[in-house]
């Protein structure tokens, strides 16, 4: 029974890691740069929702606050690409990476100034409630996280494989030049990918904050999600989710059965193992070009 509860809470935190990792992979595939502020995007998304719905702040209805927060993050993502990154077109990837690290710092301190550096928790309708199934007590929040992640994954899958816009995003990530030749407006598509990754970050943040307290340095969780993305193969969306789940499961299990402190290093131990034995990640998608 204990074991099942560990698994469920592991899956729940794995889903959050997986969603942040998804954001990394989306941006990486579209722009070939890593957005190190992805964890901070998640944190900001959580705080925006919290600021809208918590009684200390605006006190809006939770179900109204969630979509507003998601839309705000999507718009921020779009504007970041449109207003900042587009002017860095042609610069090396390193400078874009450093820029995102700087943006991460700015977001962290901005959030601290607006919402204080103290940990706060998001007031959700399902906070503190739980159900017991045959002796296993499961938190409502954990079940909600798993269900929302499943639904979001399904929605993203349909979006990328069925809609014209999703296909165009795939096409421009696989061969940007060819997408240009086909008349796909690649720059606008890239901004839309940033919007999508902002929206996904907001969902991850809201889920994360519903499970426990959040403070402005929660964005550093992004490092773990980065490991998840690397385990999954950094170019593969399902890989990112699986990587997140692996890390989410390893943490509570190694904390329960391993030596003290082991749970902190276990995710990175797995990362090293994957990189040594499958350097491309578990779901690597590499394709050589034929001449």
């Amino acid at each position, binding site marked *: 029974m204990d074991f099942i509860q560990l698994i469920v809470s592991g899956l729940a935190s794995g889903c959050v890691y997986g969603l942040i990792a998804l954001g990394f992979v989306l941006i990486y595939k579209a722009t070939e740069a890593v957005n190190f502020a992805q964890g901070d995007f998640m944190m900001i998304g959580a705080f925006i929702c919290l600021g809208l719905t918590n009684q200390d702040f605006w006190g809006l209805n939770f179900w109204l606050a969630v979509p507003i927060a998601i839309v705000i993050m999507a718009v921020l993502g779009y504007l970041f690409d449109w207003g900042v990154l587009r002017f860095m077109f042609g610069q090396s990837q390193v400078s874009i990476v450093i820029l995102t690290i700087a943006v991460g710092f700015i977001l962290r301190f901005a959030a601290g100034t607006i919402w204080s550096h103290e940990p706060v928790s998001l007031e959700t309708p399902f906070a503190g409630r739980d159900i017991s199934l045959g002796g296993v007590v499961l938190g409502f929040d954990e079940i909600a996280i798993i269900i929302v992640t499943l639904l979001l994954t399904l929605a993203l899958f349909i979006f990328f494989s069925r809609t*014209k816009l999703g*296909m*165009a995003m*795939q*096409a421009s990530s*696989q*061969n940007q*030049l*060819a*997408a*240009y*030749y*086909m*008349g*796909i*407006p690649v720059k606008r598509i890239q901004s839309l990918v940033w919007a999508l990754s902002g929206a996904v970050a907001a969902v991850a943040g809201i889920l994360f904050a519903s499970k426990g307290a959040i403070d402005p340095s929660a964005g550093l969780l992004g490092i773990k999600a980065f490991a998840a993305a690397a385990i999954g193969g950094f170019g593969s969306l399902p890989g990112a989710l699986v990587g997140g789940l692996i890390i989410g499961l390893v943490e509570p299990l190694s904390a329960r059965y391993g030596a003290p402190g082991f749970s902190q290093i276990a995710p990175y131990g797995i990362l090293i193992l994957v990189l040594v034995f499958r350097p491309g990640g578990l779901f690597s*998608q590499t*394709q050589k*070009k*034929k*001449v």
Partner: protein
Amino acid sequence: MSTPSTNVVLRIDNLESYYGPIMAIRGVSLEVREGQIVTVLGANGAGKTTLLKTISGVMDPEKGTVKLQGEEIQGSEPNQVVARGMVHVPEGREIFPLMTVAENIAMGAYTRSDKQAIDEDTELVYSYFPILKERRMQAAGTLSGGQQQMLAIGRGLMARPRIMLLDEPSLGLSPLLTEEIFGIIQRLNAEQKVTMMLVEQNAAVALSIANYGYVMELGRIVMADDAATLAASKDVQEFYLGISQEENQRGQRRWKQRKTWR
């Protein structure tokens, strides 16, 4: 001009284009008339690919004008150019490797939204390239080089172009496949009325299907004439078709021979 009565689809005047500090196109002027196959011949680095990229909007020209059916299009984005009926089939295929053949073809119609006509055109593409229909659920990256070239041309057709810019369709293909692809290009031109601007290093094959030809060297047009006249000219035979002239008494001194345009 072979058929001076037809309309000019594409007209380029004094086009200049740079790769960084290097002037790759040095004042090129040419025209392509409706229904024609026009070829631009030239060696490596002559500026042929840059010329096509500048026409299709992937690169911006420094000077000069590109007129598509009388309207100036230089400097506009590729998506606008495609929507106006000009599609560029790039050098080296440039397909979407992880998407299926059918998805690749669907991407060619990105600028269109008339679903029924798109379905008809998909069938049309499959009728010209039956192998693509057979492999339509396969990832495009797993196709052979020749099939990828067919996919690139078929994908280009999906934009329902008035004029198609083809960059080195023979690149890396066997002579047999090259002949097959050029046969299809000729059929598309005759049956679907797609005007073609064909850039090639393989001068013999290109001149065999073209109506009119230009020879490009170091960013300039150095010769322009009917394809048949070009194929018969001494310089083109010597430098592009590899037919050596009668040797003089002291043996071959080809490298010392001067081209007439220098």
